[in-house]
């Protein structure tokens, strides 16, 4: 049973467009929600993260929107670039569970030039 559900599995966006990836979680004990970016042959790397007491966080072209009541959060990539082509993972953490990351299934993003 997957505790964090992510959609879509794959996404193709034109350069300059907006990429949107959605996640939903079950466990209300989660208290930290990071997004990781993974390029082929590399390990995941933290992109941006949010706590549930904030509804939105923006860092450059990347924005997380968080809806606590719906138990959903999403990643928006503005002005998508070919260099953004990667697999994106949402994750959730329970602070009292040893910082364990529970990952969504991943979204493979391709940005076409």
């Amino acid at each position, binding site marked *: 049973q997957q505790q964090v559900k992510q959609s879509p599995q794959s996404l193709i966006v034109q350069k300059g467009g907006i990429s949107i990836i959605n996640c939903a979680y079950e466990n209300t004990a989660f*208290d*930290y929600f*990071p997004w*990781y970016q993974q390029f082929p*042959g*590399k*390990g*995941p*790397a*933290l992109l941006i*993260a949010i706590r549930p007491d904030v509804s939105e966080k923006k860092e450059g072209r990347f924005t997380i929107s968080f809806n606590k009541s719906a138990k959903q959060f999403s990643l928006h990539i503005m002005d998508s670039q070919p260099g953004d082509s990667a*697999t994106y*993972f949402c994750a959730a*953490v329970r*602070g009292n*569970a*040893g*910082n*364990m*990351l*529970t*990952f969504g*299934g*991943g979204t*493979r993003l391709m940005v076409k030039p």
Partner: protein
Amino acid sequence: DTAVSQTPKYLVTQMGNDKSIKCEQNLGHDTMYWYKQDSKKFLKIMFSYNNKELIINETVPNRFSPKSPDKAHLNLHINSLELGDSAVYFCASSQDPLSGRVGTQYFGPGTRLLVL
């Protein structure tokens, strides 16, 4: 320069063999992890160690045994390898989560294990 390093990068072996993967971090972190990424890219926590002590063991067969000789190293030993063990194994590290702070996890480049 590499923050989290793993060796080997690739590992091809026969069913039934025993193998080890090594991980080292030079970030001064107290906590290290092993994750498994399957062929569908799904990432799942296997183990977490804090200051050389096991704090998470997520329903992993006991053929998998992590060993932490010091807080900068966390090795993964796998006995009696099975076909289903084929995956990419990632090591990660973070600051001490037991202090109440959630720490960013830094991942290594992965070890690609293929069991034939």
